């Protein structure tokens, strides 16, 4: 009787929706340290995403294609606008730019091996190109970044394409900081800085400002590479309609659009979670800009930020992308956050599935580290095989969906194949809410 009576006197503990446990813990952490939280990975908050879209599949008006029998093409040609030597990838999935420095040398090699086995490209990052990466990558895109760490015209000439990085989805408008504990002698030498110091990566390019200057910068890069190589322009998803239009105006062959779920090696948590657009919201404005300029499929669009499986790939392509790019998912395929390291994750205060302190250089999986002992844990051959497997699965999944929607090439997927599960996703993707013909915000920019 007494216990039953108490039940009506004391309400059960109730967590605040506003001040939830994570928020309270962060206030405690900030109060104790006086500094914001820095971490890797991408946005972790729940966002409207590809999961909020569904494909309709075939029906009386749409013929499906036979699985395992009828061909469904997946190749993509990038750089057809101006480059004398466009590159062709066999699958519509590329590996995003990640630096040697933030990643170990074996990890970079594994990315190259996996991408090459799957017939696609990988991408350098801050600090320039390593020999292992070039040797392991059949198709290698050279990132031209604001910091210009390691920038060498000979490396540009060795690359298969050039990607001018304006920003990235995890932190549009932000630079970077590679903390001293990851600055080995080799990383320091490549970046012309003393070993062991924090290395700031600039947020703006040092020798150009604005779209008119960008046009001249692209001209210079084309002149230096004899107009042979495709030139990409990568932007974080902020103002995708205008940024895409300006990139086209500046002369880009390819636009890379990175949504806020895109990963980063190290950035303030507040930046990752509170800046930029979700990938889902960024694609249609970019495609609209390309279409209005009569450049859709002439200037290729690569979308990245939270691509995890073949369904995400298919949905991005249906919304108008020519290809997608993966970074975080590729690292996970190599072994990041794998349960086999659970005991060691626990020692550094985290658990498999939540590890995001990529900047600290203590990665048990040997991927986001320069520690000589930890880096040995990743076998680049085995890592490359795992990545190639993952890319193969994603491609097969994408083809499965494309065939079910009657497409003989993944590029034939279209917005009309999609519906949305939420009003927000319907508005962002500009497809009807499931079971209705209502597209919220249709005919607005």
């Amino acid at each position, binding site marked *: 009787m007494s216990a039953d009576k108490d039940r009506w006197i004391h309400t059960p503990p109730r967590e605040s929706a506003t001040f939830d446990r994570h928020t309270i813990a962060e206030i405690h952490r900030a109060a104790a340290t006086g500094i914001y939280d820095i971490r890797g990975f991408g946005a972790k908050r729940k966002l409207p995403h590809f999961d909020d879209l569904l494909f309709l599949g075939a029906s009386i008006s749409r013929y499906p294609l036979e699985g395992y029998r009828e061909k469904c093409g997946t190749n993509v040609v990038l750089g057809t606008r101006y480059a004398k030597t466009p590159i062709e990838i066999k699958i519509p999935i590329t590996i995003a730019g990640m630096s040697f420095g933030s990643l170990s040398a074996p990890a970079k090699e594994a990315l190259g091996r996996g991408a090459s086995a799957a017939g696609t490209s990988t991408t350098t990052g801050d600090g320039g190109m390593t020999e292992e990466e070039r040797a392991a990558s059949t198709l290698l895109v050279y990132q031209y970044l604001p910091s210009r760490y390691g920038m060498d015209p000979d490396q540009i000439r060795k690359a298969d394409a050039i990607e001018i990085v304006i920003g990235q989805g995890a932190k549009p408008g932000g630079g970077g900081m590679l903390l001293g504990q990851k600055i080995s002698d080799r990383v320091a030498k490549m970046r*012309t800085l003393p070993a062991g110091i924090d290395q700031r990566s600039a947020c703006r390019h040092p020798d150009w400002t604005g779209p008119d200057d960008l046009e001249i910068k692209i001209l210079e890069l084309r002149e230096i590479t004899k107009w042979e190589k495709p030139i990409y322009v990568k932007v974080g998803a902020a103002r995708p309609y205008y940024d895409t239009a300006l990139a086209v105006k500046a002369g880009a062959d390819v636009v890379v659009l990175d949504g806020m779920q895109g990963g980063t090696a190290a950035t303030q948590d507040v930046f990752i979670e509170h800046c930029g657009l979700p990938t889902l919201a960024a694609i249609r404005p970019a495609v609209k800009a390309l279409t209005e300029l009569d450049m859709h499929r002439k200037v290729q669009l690569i979308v990245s930020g939270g691509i995890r499986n073949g369904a995400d790939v298919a949905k991005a392509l249906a919304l108008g992308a020519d290809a997608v790019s993966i970074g975080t998912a590729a690292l996970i395929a190599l072994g990041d956050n794998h349960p086999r390291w659970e005991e060691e994750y626990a020692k550094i205060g985290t658990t498999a599935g939540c590890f995001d302190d990529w900047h600290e250089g203590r990665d048990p999986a040997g991927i986001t580290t320069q520690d000589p002992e930890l880096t040995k844990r990743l076998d680049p051959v085995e890592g490359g095989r795992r990545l190639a497997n993952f890319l193969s699965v994603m491609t097969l999944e994408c083809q499965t969906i494309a065939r079910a929607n009657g497409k003989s090439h993944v590029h034939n997927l279209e917005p009309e194949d999609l519906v949305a599960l939420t009003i927000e996703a319907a508005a962002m993707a500009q497809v009807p809410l499931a079971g209705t013909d209502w597209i919220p915000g249709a005919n607005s920019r």
Partner: protein
Amino acid sequence: MTASNPKSTPTADGKRNTTLDLAASSLRDINEILQSAEGGEFRVVNPRGAHALAAGLEGDVDVTIDGHVGYYCGGMNKKARISINGNAGTGVAENMMSGRVHVRGDASQSAGATGCGGLLVIDGNASARLGISLRGLDIVVRGSIGHMAAFMAQAGNIVVLGDAGEALGDSIYEARLYVRGKVASLGADCVQKEMRDEHRRDLRRLLDAAGCGPEVLVDDFKRYGSARRLYHFHIDNIGSY
């Protein structure tokens, strides 16, 4: 690929001296000739402010440009010796790897940005962000320079015979700065440093290489560089950011 009407005449030492006319040939054609040359002397006439002129050169060539040039002249240069008889636009000799670029007039913003090696000489003044993110290139400016010079400069030397604008050497790493005139202000983590004999020798070498005569005295310069207080992010330095 050849430029239309390139005029080539023998020089006294037997090298070919080729004249390239940007009024008659395209930028691509002229750059192709310069980029493909392993040696020789070239004179480019009627540059008319062209961008990316003589960018990406790799040969042991001498190039003289008669007139003003636009952005990125001599960009990413290796080995070549480029002389500009005029003013230069933004980013002259940006990311230069080796060789020599000489601007006889003034230079616009970001001259020598991210340069890795070689020598950039500017006879006139240079605008903002000279030597930004410098990585080993040496720069000598006979005139004055604008604001934010040597921002985040990592390695290399900058010598200024005139004055320097505001925020000189902001967030500088290991580059060395020598200024003869006034410095409007120093940027975050940039301080005046002792001029030791090694620095005097180095400065003299740079002045000689730039063609400055003995009347330019090393002892008239002051040296600036990094206090190295911001090399590791620390909350106590937050006021500097």
